[in-house]
Structure formats: structure tokens, C-alpha cells
């Protein structure tokens, strides 16, 4: 079956995908280069019985999303660097209370106000570790308008299924890019609801279950529970009893680890016989893909490994993709973030080199292929 191609901008695809996934609540605050997502949501949501609200800041935006999600709505907010910084506290709250929500962060140059209209990939580590304390989180990194669509719908599916905040992280170039994409049939895009709790005696909102994801209580239907950002017992009420606190946090982390087979996603291009594997995401991965194509024409055995789930990092697929490589190159639009994870996983078994750009311009395919050839000269 062929689907008709539809021309969409990146941010527009994000909004349409969210609505298709079942998002019925959006709260946001204007910020370049993500504002188009809010604009599209303000048009789309009232048409499908949802609610859009422009809040007073990004703190309130994520708070309102979590509040709507308490009520049972699939909720999303979208922002960029400075706003993402403001969201960190409530992001931790969503992780702690296991309230599903999707946060889109369109990366621009930083730190601080930085370069609002220029692309960057400087929030890779913030997206993983931005909020305080150990916490579960899933971060997806689409590289094209098509992937913004599919990864946004996947963000809702993962967030609902595992009751965890999911960050969709992409850069300004892809956000503003116009590409024709295949819009999947609606029924393929709808994200299943989080597991719902049924009323019954002795119900505990954070009890251990086989999946480690407890069913969630929808208010107004007979179960009345307490939700708190304080460390809580299976009853939902605060606790500081060491064994209970220990288990509470470990379950949060284990529920992600346990489901890595569903959560992990990556793409390996010509890695089988690659002597040098490039690891990249977003617009940089697309430059790298072009570089691999031209390098192969010149007889250089290069490959590309691209995490689509950035966090948790798809370790197994990465190890498989780099198993035969002599070297690894990590080009990225920051001073060296993704390379830290790659070095951790490579553990000194082969040299890892970086290629970094922080001047507000994307890395061009030529820069990557030149760097590969330069590295190959050492072999």
C-alpha cells in the first residue's frame, strides 16, 4: 500500500503527529525555534476536542501538562534550550510521580540565550541528566521531518506505556525543514493509553507489578490516591524508610532497563564491513550519511551508527555496529557530549575521535569525510 506524500515542516509534523498519537492537551510558552509547534497545536487541538493553553512560562507549561495528564489526557509541551532549563524541576516531578508527558526540545545554540535561530546539539546531556537526582527518562533524536513524525508518535506510546517523561530532541535545521513525508494511517499512530487501575480493595498506586509499571489512577472513578514528588511507598504516601525508599527509586530505574528491547532504537548504515564507524544524530547524522556515501565511492570503508533513542543509549546495537571497526568518529554540534557515552561504551578498545562545531553552523558532509580520511591515514 502506498501512502501519499505530504509536504510538512519539521515542527508542523511534530504537532500533527502528536494529535494523531492522541495528544489532547498542550501547554507552552513561545520560544524560537519551537514556536510553530505551539501555533499548530493551538489550531489543531480545539478541532479534536482537546485544549491548548499558552502559559505564563515554561515552568507552568510543563506543570499544566502534568496536571492534564493526572486527569488522563495525553499531554505535550514544546520548547527550546532556555525553556528546557526551566522545565527541569517538573520533569523530575513527572519522573518521580510516573506521570506520562512528552517534552519537545528544539535545540538552538547555547548556553543561555545563545543563538536562538541557529542549530546546535548542546542539550544531549541536559536531556539525560538535567533534573536533579537519579531518574528514569527516555530521549528520542529524530533526524528528518519523517522521523519527527514517527518519533513523536513513538514518544507518546513509550511515555504512556512506561509512565515516564519522554523528550523529543531535534535541532533547528530539521525543525524548519520542509520535506515530503509518508503520513502513516491514523490507526498506526494512536498511542495506547497508560495502564489504568481498576477499583478494588487494598489497591496501592505504586505497588510492584510484573512490568514494574504500576497502573495509574484516573481521578473521579472510585479510587482516591495521593500523588507526591516526595519519595513514596507503594501506598503513594511519603516515606523515608530506607528499604522502601531504596526500592522506590530502583524500581523507577529498573522499569526502563527491563524494557530496553522495546525502548532501544537505532539505525546502522553500512557498518558491517566498516573500518571507521561514525556515530551521530540529528542533522549531523544526515551530513554523516552523505559523507559515508561519498567515502564509499572513494573506496573508504565508512559506516554510520545513528541512535534514534538517545537515552537510554542503544548499547547492544552500538556494540554490534562497531564490532569490526578500527576507529569511531563522533561528529556533533557541541563541544563533545555524545562522545562521552561512546567512549564509555568503547572502553578503550579502539580509538574514538571527535569532530565538533559550536559556531551555529551545521557540520557539512565534506568536513566529516575529510576528518575520516585524515584519521584513516593513521591506520
Amino acid at each position: 500500500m502506498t501512502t501519499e506524500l505530504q509536504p510538512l515542516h519539521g515542527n508542523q509534523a511534530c504537532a500533527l503527529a502528536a494529535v494523531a498519537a492522541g495528544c489532547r492537551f498542550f501547554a507552552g510558552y513561545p520560544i524560537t525555534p519551537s514556536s510553530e509547534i505551539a501555533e499548530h497545536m493551538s489550531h489543531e487541538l480545539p478541532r479534536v476536542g482537546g485544549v491548548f493553553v499558552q502559559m505564563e512560562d515554561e515552568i507552568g507549561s510543563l506543570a499544566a501538562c502534568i496536571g492534564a495528564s493526572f486527569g488522563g489526557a495525553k499531554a505535550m509541551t514544546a520548547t527550546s534550550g532556555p525553556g528546557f532549563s526551566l522545565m527541569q524541576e517538573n520533569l523530575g516531578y513527572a519522573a518521580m510521580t510516573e506521570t506520562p508527558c512528552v517534552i519537545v526540545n528544539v535545540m538552538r545554540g547555547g548556553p543561555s540565550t545563545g543563538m536562538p535561530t541557529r542549530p546546535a546539539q548542546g542539550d544531549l546531556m541536559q536531556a539525560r541528566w538535567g533534573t536533579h537526582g537519579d531518574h528514569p527518562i527516555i530521549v528520542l533524536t529524530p533526524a528528518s521531518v519523517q522521523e519527527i513524525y514517527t518519533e513523536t508518535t513513538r514518544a507518546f506510546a513509550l511515555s504512556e506505556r512506561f509512565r515516564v517523561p519522554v523528550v523529543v530532541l531535534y535541532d533547528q535545521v530539521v525543525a524548519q525543514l520542509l520535506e515530503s513525508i509518508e503520513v502513516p494511517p491514523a490507526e498506526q499512530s494512536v498511542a495506547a493509553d497508560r495502564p489504568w487501575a481498576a477499583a478494588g480493595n487494598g489497591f496501592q498506586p505504586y505497588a510492584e507489578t510484573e512490568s514494574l509499571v504500576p497502573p495509574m489512577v484516573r481521578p473521579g472513578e472510585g479510587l482516591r490516591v495521593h500523588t507526591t514528588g516526595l519519595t513514596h511507598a507503594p501506598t503513594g504516601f511519603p516515606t523515608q524508610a530506607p528499604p522502601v525508599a531504596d526500592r522506590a527509586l530502583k524500581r523507577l530505574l529498573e522499569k526502563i532497563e527491563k524494557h530496553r528491547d522495546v525502548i532501544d532504537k537505532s539505525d546502522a548504515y553500512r557498518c558491517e564491513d566498516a573500518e571507521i564507524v561514525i556515530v551521530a544524530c540529528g542533522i549531523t547524522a544526515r551530513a554523516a550519511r552523505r559523507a559515508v556515501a561519498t567515502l564509499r565511492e572513494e573506496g573508504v570503508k565508512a559506516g554510520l551508527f545513528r541512535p534514534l533513542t538517545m537515552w537510554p543509549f542503544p548499547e547492544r546495537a552500538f556494540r554490534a555496529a562497531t564490532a569490526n571497526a578500527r576507529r569511531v568518529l563522533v561528529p556533533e554540534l557541541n563541544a563533545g557530549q555524545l562522545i562521552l557515552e561512546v567512549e564509555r561504551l568503547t572502553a578503550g578498545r579502539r580509538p574514538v575521535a571527535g569532530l565538533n562545531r559550536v559556531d551555529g553552523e551545521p557540520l557539512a558532509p565534506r568536513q566529516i569525510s575529510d576528518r575520516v580520511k585524515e584519521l584513516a591515514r593513521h591506520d
Partner: protein
Amino acid sequence: MTEPLAFDIREYLRLELMPHFMCPGCGHGIALRALLWAVHELGIAKDKLAVVSGIGCSGRVGAYIDANTYHTTHGRPLAFATGLALARPDLKVVVITGDGDCLAIGGNHLLHACRRNLDLTCLMFNNEVYGMTGGQVSPTTSATRLTTTTPTGNAEPVFDACRIAEAAGASFVGREVTRQVPALKNLIKSAMSHVGFSFVEVISDCTEIYGRKNDLGEAPEMILHQKADMRPEAFGNVADQPFRPNRLTTGILSQHDLPEYGETYRARAALLRSGEK
């Protein structure tokens, strides 16, 4: 008028959490009682009641209510409640916040919640101090009071939360003291019956920390002095302080019939959808 039903507070409490965490003499328990009494007399089903609170002593009160209770982040309960109320207009949403939670860290959310006029009730328990963290100065700490961060007495002017709320567009504003429990209950009833954003300042007491630090006596003395102690005259000439109330008025301070945001939004959305058919 029909005779109010007998009110047994235990029906509305999570008794398994007793004893509660509040200090002896704390006014927050009285405020909690007034809220539950109002809920009872309004006949609101516990299943349909959502209580959203922030951080601080006031924030911990919600957990004791046998309803849908959400203990959120510091200063943000109004923003959480905004999302919940918009997503679930069938729920009765009440926010419990404190003077620091609502007026300092959460001040911006208060302003915009007032302006937006969404149908929810905000109860601000004002005990003039950050109790949970050990007694630091708050935006409502009276002049010259000693706190752990004002060792020579508070020199900062105070906020009048009710005047802020009204100026920001709240369609219902009221204030009451915990000394007057039936009046407080009635005020909360009026606030919860009002369609739109209702703001109620509940004058509470922190006896254990603030009272002791300032030698204000035991709980009974503090309650008896609730009105007098909050008068700003102690700070200086009222005429020179135009943004401060010259006395602590109580009851419904203002009420306006203004379009409720959720209703307006849904009506416009329905119109949009019917136009497309």
C-alpha cells in the same frame, strides 16, 4: 434554608495517616477542617474533588484529605491545577498553597491564574513564615518580626495577597481568619460555588516557630490577636504605604461575574467544529 447535614470530619480524612504532621497550635488544621466542612455542605463527592498543593507546611495538608490529592512542586500548584481543570472540567479543583508558595516562588502563576479566570479555588494559608524550612521571612511577614533570616527584624514591606489577586483579575476574592471557623467555612463555600477563579486568603498561625521567635504567646493568644497582629500600622505611617491595607478586612472582598475561561474555550472550540461540518 435547609438544615445543614451533620458534619463528621473523619468521613473526609485519610485516618490511616493520623497522627498528622502539624505542630500543636498550627492554624492549618483549622483551615483544613473549614475546607472539609465546606465540601460536605456543598455535597461535593470525594471522587470528584481534586486537591492540588505546593510545597511547605500548607502543601502537606492535602495528603490528609480522602480525595484525589496532588502534592506538586514549590510554587506551581496553580499551574498544575490549570492543566487538570482544563482537561477535566468535571472535577472540582481546589488549590492549597502558602504565603511563600503562592506569593514568592509562585507569584507569577498567581497573577496569571487570576487573569485567566479558570474555574478553580485557591486557598492561600498565610502564616507569615516559611515554617517547613525552619522559619525564614516570607512576603507576608509583618514588619519588624524576627525570623531566622531577619535577625534584626523584618524591614521589607508585605504583600497584600487579596489586593494583588483582585488587581490581577480574580473574579472572587475573600479573606478570613482561622479564629472564625464557621465564617471561614462559609467563605470557602462561596468561593467554591463561584464560577471562575476564586482566591481566599486564610489567616493562619505558626505558633511553634514564628510565635515562639516573636514571643507572641501560645496558640490561643495568637488566634485572639490574629487581626491586630497583622495590621501594618506597626510598620509606620499607613498613608505613606499606599499598597498596604490599612486594616485587615475579612469576608468576600470582591466578586465579579466574568467569563469563565474553560467554558469560553470549549464554546469557541465547539463553534469551530460545527463550522467545519
